[in-house]
């Protein structure tokens, strides 16, 4: 590691020998791995969530996989690296982020029969710049004991004054809520979406805080009766082996798929794109195909309780117990386009 510092302090080579040494030092600093059977992933998902998915691919192909996980700024890192970037593939959650990579020209187009067959058209970029891998359903969680079945059936209901002081959410500016609001903008227009958001904010039991889990916790504690959350958190809490408190929170809530009689429940995706400057395109595309195919898709379903993007793969047994539901078939790219509009509404109403 000390060597890496000397790499910084003496970036200019003097003579051939020091060039060789400098080259060796830089490689020792972990810059760009050079072996051909290696893939480099930039990921917005934690490595420990990816490893089970990748284990089999590694075994099958003998590929070594390197991961950098960060939640913010990977786009700027890619831009700064430019053509020298070692990244081969980018994995993200949230559609807006995928779209940002696409808009900045950081993805290369991919079109293979397998990928196009595995991922339905509304869950991938029309130009082939990105592909959705799993669906995350933003559902409403209600108190089993204090909210009757059928009392909430549409997301629009949450603006009804009857819920005054009974709703909990995380902050509006979180990507999940912003995307949800963007879907309302798409459905009803900006003014109506703003009116809804204002109604929702005036119904809140406490100022927006915590993550999705914290909202279920608040329902179990009687702080509120209704919350918005991503569906898989319900199962993560319910199946938490270590911490019985999480199971208690899950037991207090019932999951409601919204808008089943009209446009369907809002859906967000996690997805993948091929880095424009990947030096390993063929291998990377085979990883993308692998991630969209049955085995990895089932793992998505099992490990993280997400809905597979590939329609022939079923949700996990637990998730299936929630029953059939209809998701919003709005092209997912529209959500990304409307996200900044949604953020402005969030600023105006103070969600």
């Amino acid at each position: 590691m000390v060597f890496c510092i000397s790499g910084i302090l003496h970036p200019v080579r003097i003579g051939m020998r020091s060039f060789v040494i400098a080259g060796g030092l830089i490689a020792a600093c972990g810059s760009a791995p050079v072996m051909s059977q290696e893939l480099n992933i930039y990921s917005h998902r934690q490595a420990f969530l990816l490893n089970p998915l990748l284990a089999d691919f590694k075994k099958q192909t003998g590929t070594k996989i390197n991961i950098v996980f960060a939640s913010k700024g990977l786009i700027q890192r890619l831009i700064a690296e430019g053509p020298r970037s070692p990244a081969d593939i980018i994995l993200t959650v949230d559609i807006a982020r995928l779209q940002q990579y696409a808009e900045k020209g950081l993805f290369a187009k991919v079109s293979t029969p397998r990928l196009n067959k595995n991922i339905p058209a509304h869950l991938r970029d029309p130009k082939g710049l990105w592909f959705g891998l799993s669906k995350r359903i933003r559902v409403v969680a209600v108190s089993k004991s204090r909210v009757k079945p059928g009392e909430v059936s549409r997301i629009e209901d949450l603006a009804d004054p009857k819920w005054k002081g009974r709703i909990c959410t995380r902050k509006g500016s979180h990507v999940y809520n912003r995307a949800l609001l963007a879907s309302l903008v798409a459905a009803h227009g900006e003014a109506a979406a703003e009116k809804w958001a204002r109604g929702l904010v005036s119904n809140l039991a406490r100022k927006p805080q915590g993550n999705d889990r914290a909202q279920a916790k608040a329902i179990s504690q009687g702080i509120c009766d209704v919350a918005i959350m991503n569906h898989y958190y319900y199962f993560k809490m319910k199946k938490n082996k270590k911490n019985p408190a999480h199971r208690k929170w899950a037991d207090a809530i019932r999951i409601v798929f919204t808008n089943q009689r009209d446009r369907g429940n809002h859906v967000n995706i996690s997805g993948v794109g091929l880095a424009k400057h990947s030096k390993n395109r063929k291998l990377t595309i085979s990883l993308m195909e692998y991630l969209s195919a049955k085995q990895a898709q089932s793992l998505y379903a099992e490990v993280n309780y997400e809905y597979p993007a590939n329609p022939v793969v079923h949700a996990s047994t637990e998730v299936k117990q929630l029953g059939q539901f209809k998701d919003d078939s709005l092209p997912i790219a529209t959500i990304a386009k409307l996200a900044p509009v949604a953020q402005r509404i969030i600023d105006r109403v103070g969600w």
Partner: protein
Amino acid sequence: MTANLFKQTRIARDPVNGWSLTTLVFALILIGPFGALVITASGDSGGLWSHLMSTVFPRYVANTLWLMFGVGVLGLLFGITTAWIVARFSFPGAKILEWALLLPATVPAYIIAYTYTDLLEYAGPVQTLLRDLFGWSSARDYWFPEIRSMGGAILVMASVLYPYIYLMARTAFRLTPASYFEVAHLNNRNIPFTVDLPLARPAIIAGLALVLMEVLSDFGTVEFFAVETLTLGIFNVWLGMNNLTAAAQIAGMAFIFVLALVVIERIARRRQRFNDTAGRATTKSATPVTGAKAALCILLCLLPIVLGFVIPASVLLSFVLKGLAITNLDALAAATFNSLTVSLIAAIAVMAIATVMILATTYRKHPILKVLTTISALGYAFPGAILAIGVVSFAGGVDRVAAYLGASNGLLIGGVGLLVLAYVVRFQAVGHGAVTSGINRLSPNIMSASFVLGRSFTGSMAYLAPPLLRKSLMASGILVFVDVMKELPMTLLLRPFNYETLSTYVYQFAKDELLEESALAALTIIIAGLGPVILINASQRDKT
């Protein structure tokens, strides 16, 4: 031949060039990332400002100022009181409290926020106990302060940030010459307010500046407590509105605000001198106290330690003991090794660079260098993730030049070296503050004497600076070390493939509010910080 000889003599007589040049190079490297941010900010913000001004911006600014004010006042209260007590009095346990007061510095703010929430929220043990005791059944039956609030944020941030003030103030108090007290005593003056505080002012201000910059740039705690500050706004604009330009503009405004504060403070003490030129540099020894007075001393010192260390560490420990933590010892060992090495390297780098820059600007009064040095020490005022973008863009530029010169792989991006550079940029403020307050206490006569005795500038610095500045350097080294151990957003974005430090390891779980699963790693951050804290504190104790 003659010309050559002449040239050599001239250089030997005027070593300023070497020092000034080195300082200039350091300053430019450190300011490079700010420059990259200025370029980012100079784009078109797409008319976002009118929206921001009419909606969230006034609230963000007001909240930020309140938070800075609150943490500043509470941090000063904790830091100065305890520093004064341990410097002026000796009482049972004083030796332990003296270093224990530094322990909260090892606790990352986002972890203390999490642990306090766990403790004080509705489902936490405190409220559960109260409900059981008084027979309340729901949240509507009683009032309990909301920890996820401005007040909560002020309390937890002050509890872990006061050590900056404490450490610097304590060093200053200890070095105050005894003669001043004798004079004050003869004149029947209030000693703490006429001698201690005024003389420790540069040190206290340096500590306070660090605290305020940390508050301004904090994201983890304010996000967790849902306190809407400028930093939260920066992230909403950047990630929510996909507008990095406007985000960099807000960050730039916050930066200018900090710069203004620094300049105002400088002007305010321009004509003051804080060093002792009398030959007799004896210092005052601590007054022994016993009984009620000693008890009061102990109690006052224990308060911030309990708030900033005992409580959060106990909560983490209870997670581990309850078996909620993941115990992957291999991963933990690797992360610990990475954290320790990179923190040590960064600490040494910051101290070395700060010393060179400040010696050069203090004794070779070059106005432009002075300004550059001051600016280069303000990286702390940027939110870490934004500064990381400045660093990565700057490094991208360097790598482009390197590629042009023939280095095929990137030189900086993706290497541990970039992390070290980032830490130096961010934590230069810590080194700068400590070394500056150390130099302010040195009598200029020492250096003059050295010059008169025929030692060259470089010789004088090399001979005199290490012993005279040792305490200040150690103090800044320890703070940088624990700061790097805790640092998250820059490490996360800039680290190489498959490289985990303790804080990135903790974050994987903390991101989903599952801190209990990474409680062991979080505890390790704290424990790993203990060693250096104790060690370096011991080196501070002996008289210089």
